[in-house]
C-alpha cells in the first residue's frame, strides 16, 4: 500500500468526498463539497489549495475540482479501507452499523498498512470479500449492489460526527475541538493558546459589528475572527 506522504486525515476526508461527488461527472464544485461536508466554503477553498499543492487535485481558477490520477488512487484507497473496516466491525465483531460507520470513519485514517493487510487477509479467508480484495455485498448493506457507489449516504468526514466549523455555532453553544485546519502563524498561535483537538469550547459572544467572536476555552476568554474560527472544526455538544 503506497501512500503519498503528508496527507492529513482531513485531507483524506476531502479526497473521499470529492471522489464520491465526482462519480460520473467531470468535476465537483466547491459549493457542493461545502454543502456535503456542511462546512464553510472558505475552509474548503483552503483545503483544496493544499490538495492542489500536493498534486492530488486540479482546478482552473474557480472551475470545478478534478481529482488527478494520484488523487483518485489515494481517495479510492481510503474508501476501500473504510469499507473493509466497516464490514469487519459489523459482520465479524457484531458492532451496531451506526457505531461501526462512525468508528470506520476515524479508523480509516490511522490504521497501519500492516493491520490493514492482515484484516484484508482475514476478510478474504472468511469469505467476506472477494479474493481480489473487492468488497462483496451483503444483506445488511442495502443499496450496495453496484460496486462501491453510494455505499454510504453521508460524507464520512466531518459530517458523520456532527461536525461544524466553530464560527457556525450559536452564542451559548458548546463543542469539542476536533481539528484545526488553519495554517502558518495563525495555526501555531491557536495551538499555543490551547485551541487543540479534544478541548471544550463555548461561544460567549459576537462583537457589535458582527466580528470577531469571543470564546471560552480552558477557563479563559479568547477572541477569534470568524474567518479564523472557520478553520477550527468542532463536534457540537447538544
Amino acid at each position, binding site marked *: 500500500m503506497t*501512500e503519498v*506522504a*503528508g*496527507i*492529513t*486525515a482531513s485531507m483524506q476526508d476531502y479526497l473521499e468526498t470529492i471522489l464520491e461527488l465526482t462519480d460520473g461527472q467531470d468535476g465537483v464544485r466547491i459549493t457542493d463539497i461545502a454543502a456535503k461536508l456542511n462546512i464553510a466554503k472558505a475552509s474548503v477553498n483552503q483545503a483544496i489549495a493544499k490538495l492542489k499543492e500536493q498534486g492530488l487535485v486540479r482546478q482552473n481558477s474557480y472551475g470545478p475540482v478534478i481529482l488527478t490520477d494520484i488523487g483518485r488512487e489515494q481517495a479510492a484507497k481510503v474508501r476501500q479501507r473504510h469499507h473493509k473496516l466497516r464490514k469487519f466491525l459489523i459482520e465479524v465483531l457484531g458492532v451496531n452499523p451506526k457505531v461501526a460507520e462512525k468508528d470506520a470513519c476515524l479508523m480509516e*485514517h*490511522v490504521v497501519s498498512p500492516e493491520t490493514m493487510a492482515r484484516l484484508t487477509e482475514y476478510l478474504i479467508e472468511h469469505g467476506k470479500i472477494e479474493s481480489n480484495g473487492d468488497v462483496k455485498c451483503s444483506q445488511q448493506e442495502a443499496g450496495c449492489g453496484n460496486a462501491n457507489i453510494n455505499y454510504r449516504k453521508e460524507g464520512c468526514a466531518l459530517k458523520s460526527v456532527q461536525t461544524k466549523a466553530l464560527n457556525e455555532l450559536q452564542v451559548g453553544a458548546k463543542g469539542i475541538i476536533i*481539528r*484545526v485546519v488553519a495554517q502558518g*502563524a*495563525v*495555526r*501555531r*498561535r*491557536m*495551538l*499555543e*493558546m*490551547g*485551541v*487543540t*483537538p*479534544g*478541548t471544550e469550547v463555548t461561544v*460567549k*459572544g*459576537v*462583537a*457589535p*459589528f*458582527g*466580528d*470577531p467572536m*469571543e470564546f471560552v476555552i*480552558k*477557563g*479563559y*476568554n*479568547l*477572541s*477569534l*475572527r470568524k474567518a*479564523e474560527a472557520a478553520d477550527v472544526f468542532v463536534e457540537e455538544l447538544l
Partner: protein
Amino acid sequence: MEEMQSQQASGGIVVALAGNPNSGKTTLFNELTGSRQHVGNWPGVTVEKKEGRMFFAGQPIQIVDLPGTYSLGAYSEDEAVARNYIVFDKPDVVVNIIDAVNIERNLYLTVQLLEMGANVVIALNMIDEAQARQVEVRAEKLSTLLGIPVVPTVATKNHGVKELIEQVVAAAKCKKNEALRINYGREMEAVLEAVISEIKRGNALNERFDPRWLAVNLLTGDLKLIEGLVNNDTLNRLLLKQREYAKNLEQAYGDDVETIVAEKRYGFISGLAKEVVVKRQSVADRLTMSDRIDKIVTNRYLGIPIFLLLMWAMFQFTFTLGDPMIEWIETLFEWLGEAGGSLLESAGASELMKSFFVDGLIGGIGSVLVFMPNILLLFFAISLLEDSGYMARAAYVMDRFMHSLGLHGKSFIPMLMGFGCNVPAIMATRTLENKQDRLITILINPLMSCSARLPVYVLFVGAFFSAYEGLVIFSLYMLGIVMAIFIGMLFKRFLFKGETSHFVMELPPYRIPTLKSTFIHMWERSSSFIRKAGTIIFAVVVVIWVLSNLPAGVETASSESYLGQIGSLVAPVFAPAGFGSWEASAALVFGILAKEVVVGTLGIIYGVEEAGLTKIIAAQWTPLAAYAFMVMTLLYIPCVATIGAIKRETNSWGWTAFAVGYSLILGWLMAVIVYQVGSLLGLG
C-alpha cells in the same frame, strides 16, 4: 562554569521574570525592584528591556523582566527575546508567574521553560482572585508534581513576595539539571531518540542545550531558533532529515508535528490541572463579575456607544484637566524669564547674553515642560484602560471596523495614543504581531494629530477663528484621521497585497487597576517622551536662537539671518498653498525638528510673545492661508523624534525615508488643494 560567570559578572544572583501577558508580571517586577529599575532596549531588536535591582539579606539580586509571552515558540520578536535570554544568557533562576485563575494556559509556558531545563520557581499569582471564584489551587501538590518550588502570591498586595525571594535565593544555590520530559507518543519518541543520539554525537550542540529540547524544536521546524545557532555539520545534517521525519510522523498521527506537540503538552497540563485545581461544583456555571461587565461592554447595541463614551471621557480628562496646568507652567516660566532677565541685567550681562538665557534656555526648557500635563494625563488614562482590561475589549469591539480599513483591532490603541504623542504611539505598535499590520500602523501614525500640533492650531485659531475654535480644531483632527484611513487603505492595497493577519487574542478578566502600577506605567511612558523628545526640543530651541542671531551683527530673526535665508530658499514652493513668505517656510523647516517649534520660531521671527504673535499673524496672514498652513503642519514630515522612533521600530532606513517622503507630498498636496479650492469658492 557558565553559572559562575553570570553571577560574577553582575555580582549577584540573576533572576529572569517570565509569564503570560496579564499574569501580573509587571506588578511583581515593580514590587520587587521599586524605583531601582531602568528601561532600555534589548540589543539588536526593538523589544523593551526592563532591568532592576534588589537586595535580600545584603545580597544583590539582578532582575530581568522578560517580555510577556504565551509561549516560547519564538514566532514574534518578544518570544525570541525571552527564549534567547533563557537559552543563551542562562539566568540563575527563572521566576515563572502564573495566573492561578487561568492555570492551564499559563502552564503551557511553564512546560516549555521546564523542557528547556531552566531553573524555575513558580509564583502562583492572583491566588486571592482564584479563591473569590471558589477555585482552589494546591500549591504544594503542583510543587511535588513538577519538582520545583511553587509560592502562592498576590503581587498587587505584596503577599508572598518575601517567601518568593527566599525560594529564589535557595534555588539559585542548588541548580536543577533535569529537564522535564513529556511523553510525545511512541512514534514521536522513536524519532526523537534518533535525533537526540545524532545531536549527542555532534558534541558542540550537546554542551550548550538540552538535547531533547533541541530535538523537539528541530522536529517542529522552529527556524528562528536554528538561525540563532552556530552553523555546524550535525545541525545541517539534521535539518536535511527534518522534513522526512516530519512527514513520517504526520502520516503516523494523521496530524502535523506542531499539533502533536501542542496536544501532548496540553495533555500533560490537563493531567496536572486535574490533580491541582479543585473547583466547587455549584459555581461552575455562575457568571463572574467579569462576565457581567462584558455582557454590557461588548453588547451588540451598547458596545460601540460605551467605547465612544470612554474615548470622549479620556479626551476630556486629558485636555480639560490639562489645560489649566499648562497655563500655570507658562506663567511660571514667564516669571522665571523676567526674574532671570532682570537678574542678568543687574549683573551687567550683554543684551545678547540675556536673550540667550531668557529666550534660548529658559524658553527651551519651558517649551518641553509645557507638554507634561497633557502627556501625563493621557498616559494615565491609557494605563488605566489597559490595566483594567478594557483595552483588549476596545480592540475586540473595533476590529471589524479596523479590519475593513486594512488594519487590526490592536492598531486602534497606537492610533489613539498618536493623539498624545506619536513617539510612544509608534512604540506601542509592538503589540501587533503581524509585521505588515505593524508597518502600516507605524507609517500612518504621524497623521494622527499629536498634542505637539495643538499649540500651532491654538495660535492660528486664536488669530482668525476664535468664534469657531472647537470646530476648526476638530476639523483638523478629523482630517488627520481621514487621511490615515485613506493612506492606510492605499498602502494595504498596493504595498502589502494579499497579506493576512490574525486576531487570536486573549480577553483578560476585568481587574481594578492599582494606583501604583498605573502611576509607574504612566511615568515610564511620559519620562520616555521627555527623554526622547525633550532633549531634541530643547536643543532645537537653542539652535533656532543661534541661527536667528547669526551671522554676527544681523538683527535677530531678520531675513538676513541664517534662519531668514533658509526660509527664503524654501518659500516659493509654498506659494500655491498661500503661505509663500519666508517666515512661514522657516517655521516649517524648524517644525520638522518638533512641530510645536513652529510657534516658537514664528515668535522669534516676529520678535514677540505669544499674545503679540496672535495680533501680528492676524494682520499679516489671511484666514484661508492660515488654515492651509495648519493642514500642512498636521500632515507634513513627522518630527525628528518620531522619525527616530520610526527608524527604530521598522529597523529600516528605507521605510523611514518613505514615511518622510510620502507625508511631505501629502501635506503639500492637501495644503494646495485647501488654498486653491478655498480661493475658487471665494474664501480667500
